[in-house]
């Protein structure tokens, strides 16, 4: 593989990473809550798709029609039933509860599915690719990247232009004030969590098509999502995409140098950004 090819693969991977990161960033932006079980939601989505595939023979891409709405419902319920009780000035309770949730989900999945490596099968599409000069571009990674960009654009427009989007942003800015306007802030929090869970479950299924996963894959996915958010800059949808792409390219170029160092290369680029540009590459803009 040439260096240019590695960069292109990393760029496409970055779309998927941005998809992982969006929900984390949204929940922090709206609820000031960092969900340490974020990676487990992705893994749950992948296992949900796996079960639908083995039990009913549903194609993983079709399974999204069930997995994504189910994850949204799970997100809404988790927020309303559990996470709402932890909202407050101190981040300690929400961190402890979401960390506990991640341990519970990991070990429930381990008890049910063992620690075996899994993969979601989409047949010939897994490896199908076309050539553009020296480059070999997979249809699937390209489709994932395009979907991720479209989704981020849609989310950005939704937050900027729709009435519900405005309510979400207003709740993020001042939950007390929106309550005075007759908004049920807890419902808004539930919707934000639903969007977050739906996007990260989608990312989890797509990731399960592209690479192997186990019940213990969650922490690495959480870390990747987090690194993309911080590299890009907090609270900026396009920053998250840029963060995902930078991280993806760092990983594939790292793997191009030495296949064993893919993850470490991503971490080092993250630490470099944290040291030199802690506000991220694209800090939050006033309008969005």
């Amino acid at each position, binding site marked *: 593989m040439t260096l240019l090819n590695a960069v292109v693969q990393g760029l496409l991977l970055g779309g998927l990473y941005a998809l992982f990161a969006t929900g984390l960033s949204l929940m922090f932006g709206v609820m000031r809550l960092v969900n340490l079980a974020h990676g487990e939601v992705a893994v749950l989505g992948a296992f949900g798709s796996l079960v639908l595939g083995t039990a009913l023979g549903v194609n993983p891409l079709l399974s999204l029609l069930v997995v994504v709405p189910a994850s949204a419902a799970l997100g809404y319920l988790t927020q309303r039933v559990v996470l709402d009780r932890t909202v407050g000035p101190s*981040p300690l309770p*929400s*961190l402890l509860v979401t960390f506990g949730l991640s341990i519970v989900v990991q070990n429930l999945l381990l008890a049910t599915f063992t620690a075996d490596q899994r993969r979601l099968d989409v047949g010939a599409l897994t490896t199908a690719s076309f050539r553009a000069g020296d480059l070999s571009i997979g249809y699937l990674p390209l489709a994932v990247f395009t979907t991720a960009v479209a989704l981020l654009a849609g989310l950005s427009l939704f937050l900027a232009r729709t009435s519900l989007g405005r309510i979400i942003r207003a709740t993020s800015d001042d939950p007390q004030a929106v309550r005075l306007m007759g908004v049920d802030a807890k419902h808004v929090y539930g919707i934000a969590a639903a969007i977050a869970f739906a996007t990260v479950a989608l990312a989890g299924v797509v990731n399960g098509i592209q690479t192997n996963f186990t019940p213990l894959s969650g922490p690495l996915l959480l870390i990747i999502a987090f690194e993309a958010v911080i590299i890009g800059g907090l609270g900026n949808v396009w920053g998250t995409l840029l963060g995902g792409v930078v991280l993806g390219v760092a990983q594939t170029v790292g793997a191009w140098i030495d296949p064993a160092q893919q993850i470490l290369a991503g971490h080092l680029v993250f630490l470099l950004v944290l040291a030199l540009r802690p506000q991220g590459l694209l800090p939050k803009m006033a309008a969005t």
Partner: protein
Amino acid sequence: MSAPTTPAGSVPDVGAAPPRVVRGGRTSTVGTGALVAVVVALAVLPYLVTSATLTSLVTLFVYVVIAVTWNLLAGYGGMVSVGQQAYIGLGAYGLVVASDIIGIDPFLAVPLAAVVAGLVSIPVSFLAFRLVGGYFAIGTWVIAEVFRLVVVQFREVGAGSGTSLRSLAGTDAGLRIAFTYWCGLIVVVAVVAGTVWLISSRLGIALTAVRDDATAAASNGIDVTRVKRVVFVASAAGAGAAGALLALSSLRVQPDSVFSVQWTAFMVFMVVIGGVGTLEGPLVGALVFFALQETLSDLGSVYLVILGVIAILVVLLAPRGVWGLVDPHRRHGLFPVGHRLATAVTSRKARS
């Protein structure tokens, strides 16, 4: 947390004897005395019990150390780290390198490993402190992962599969375990006493103020970042000592085990169960966790599900843990660290 710290002079004179600020009370005298008695009893234990018992008590000591230091970091410092396994791993590897490669006595290498972990955490703090709250938590986790991924590059310490501690090979097992046990006991006493001293010092008061309201603390002249850094380094050193003890006790280090995030999960569980932000809580939590670990850990992943569910329920329903139920008004601490106004009224109340 909110014990009155008003200096005696600013309290309006109520006509009775001038009010005094006292630290601790009858329970803290009794409690500290009882703890000293327990330590003395533990010190003579190697003459009375089997090596297997001593080895499992070393595990308990490790639990106490990591619970106390994580509580110092999160409960008092307000810094929820998910990356303390970085220093456990560093301490474990530090012990192996110091004794097997450099040739220092393995027991003397324990404090050395703690110092190394503390020193390494200083530059780390400059990176980690750029993040706050939940992002600080994941950031410390990334740093711990970087430590693991860097350590596995070195063939000298067995790369990905780890290595054995060779310098104690050939010594009498009974004697080695007894010395490991005493070493562990010294570490526990040093860490608990050091934490009590830190919390009751001027720095501890500053720390509590920072945790409760960083802005107000800063406006009172407290150097918030410096206070946090001292705590970050102290708890890294404690975790380093715990890691060194683990290596000493198991005679083996494996990167995936010593750098496992499960250590932090254990710390969180113990501190939450016992009572976050109290000195007694982590001790209670470590005992509860040790008892659960000895009886239920054969259940494997189901056991960890149970631990997770218990921790979540405690945070939601009894956020101050077991110690919060025992001492809801923070009047009966085992350590003389609180400040209380000893007026005639309060002392009469205390007596009734």
